[in-house]
């Protein structure tokens, strides 16, 4: 059984339009992959398709998590296998408190493995890392949250669920400098602690979140394909040059 989050020739359509045109990607436990690319290149589609969003039709290829075929499974079963998606635009669930939601999610994914006291200790530690007041727990999930609060809650869920593989979809978008620092430092702490064995796929348009989490591998996606794969230096190159040079290289076949 091949370990890793392994995506092979994945093709995905939305409303009969092909968005992903054959993606090959392997994320190993404990490693950080960055998936970068201009807007509209298909990065978020890959995230949603892997998490099992019903609007994304699989037109071909496969995706396996530690050898288990993901694509036939409902989203909750994928989560139970150890997959986590941090949403770019998390949905609000009015009337459901953050505390209840965290508890339900943890129990769904991991069973009742923590006593209420242990669970509480875990949550409070993460609140502290994220610079969140405990009153946050009594609020309704994402209901009336600022952009920064939503992303903090995604990080809180990441920490509480401690998945085998985590896809972070544009976690840095819409954050001001302070929120980015809190989220980034929390990621750094998780990476060096309880999530050291988690494989990350960090989807980002700008490389700024990568200053907190140095990627082992960087993939560049354009027009539904991964056009270039390299080390952390590739992210620095994007930072300096933008995507145009790479686009030109791809067009001329140099990539």
């Amino acid at each position, binding site marked *: 059984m091949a370990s890793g989050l392994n995506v092979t020739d994945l093709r995905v359509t939305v409303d009969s339009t092909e968005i992903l045109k054959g993606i090959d990607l392997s994320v190993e436990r404990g490693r950080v992959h960055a998936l970068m690319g201009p807007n509209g290149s298909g990065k978020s589609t890959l995230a949603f398709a892997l998490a099992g969003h019903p*609007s994304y039709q699989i037109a071909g290829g496969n995706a396996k998590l530690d050898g288990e075929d993901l694509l036939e499974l*409902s989203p*909750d079963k994928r989560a139970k296998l150890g997959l986590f998606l941090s949403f770019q635009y998390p949905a*609000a669930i009015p*009337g459901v408190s953050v505390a209840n939601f965290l508890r339900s999610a943890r129990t*769904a994914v991991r069973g009742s493995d923590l006593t209420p006291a242990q669970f509480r200790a875990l949550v409070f530690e993460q609140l502290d890392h994220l610079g969140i007041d405990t009153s946050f727990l009594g609020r309704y999930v994402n209901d009336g949250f600022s952009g920064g609060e939503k992303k903090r809650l995604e990080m809180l869920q990441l920490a509480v*669920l401690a998945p085998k593989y985590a896809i972070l979809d544009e976690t840095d978008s819409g954050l001001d400098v302070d929120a980015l620092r809190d989220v980034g430092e929390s990621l750094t702490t998780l990476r060096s602690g309880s999530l050291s064995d988690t494989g990350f796929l960090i989807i980002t348009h700008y490389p700024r979140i990568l200053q907190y989490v140095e990627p082992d591998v960087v993939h560049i996606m354009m027009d539904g394909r991964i056009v270039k794969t390299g080390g952390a230096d590739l992210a620095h190159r994007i930072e300096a040059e933008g995507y145009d040079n790479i686009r030109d290289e791809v067009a001329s076949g140099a990539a």
Partner: protein
Amino acid sequence: MAQLSVAAPPNEREEAFVLARSLPPPGPMPGRFWKIDLAKLALEELTPGSATPQFELSEEAKRKGVVACDLASARAAHAAIISATEGNVADWRSGRFTALNVARRENGAFIFLPKGAVVDEPIVVSYDLEGPAAFPYVLVAASEGARATIITRFRCGSNLELVSEIVEIVALEHAAVTYATVQDFGPRVRAFWSRRGNIGRDAELHWALAELGAELSIGDVKSTTLESGARTTISGFFFPNKGQHVDVQSEADHPAGQTQSETLFKSAAIDGGQARYIGNIRIRPAAHGVDATLRDDALLLSKDSHIDSIPALEIGANDVKAYHGATIGAIDDEVLFYAMSRGIERHEAERMIALGFFEPALVRFPTEALRDELRRALAGKIV
């Protein structure tokens, strides 16, 4: 407070019965709404059972002079307030089944809050209803500056088929009354209710209404802000499932300026449940400075369920703030996906989202014990 006592109380039960017979039955409703033909329900053939209230009153409330007893026992000692209120707050002449309540009720529940009596512990009215037909009646009179929470509950005999209920509340200057009630009748019951409150200067009336049981429940709730500074909230929820029909109307009536209302109804339907909600804000001419909001949200949890949601504004004055908003729909796919992506199974996620939907109305009910009981009752409807 001359406005709070307009007409004489009904003294002719027979006259009320003749009126009841002459008025048309409610419905049937347009569209896919219920098919229960109320015209076939012969009022003459209804056998009155009994409606007996019992009361839980704290020592603190007793010490402060609060009275909670059956209406007949209170008539002598509280003749003035009863005659000023009974039959004058509720518009019982306008409906077949409210008139029937006046014609047939034997007694009632009476709650009197003396001037300045502030009571923390809720006053509980437990109504025992025996069928085939029961006619509960609750009269609440809150004197100047009094504050209390009243919770009315029902216990039903197995032979119960019809309930016609009237509630009349008067809140005098600076009084504050919270009135919560839970309709959890058995599946054969047809329930008709009218709950009305008149609110004086700087006084408050807060309704919290839970509709859980009965085959058919048709009712209206109305708050009238009679003098400036009067405030009211009207909150409620209903959740018909298989074989259940609910038809609720609410009105915040603002004859006086500088008054406020906030109406919130959350309704869901599942497994063929049918409901209609009509919510109105009425701002009378010259009632300037009114601030009124109405929000009703409807959630359809199965394709065969149906909710008509009709919010309305009638504004006769300038210089007012009035807002209404309504939503209707199924559970949002994006919300469902979000919850499921956290490992929560579809059915559990739907249940969580649906129960959360009721929460903004639910938190307006008094006591954590009652709120938890209502949460369990709602959860029990999502099989």
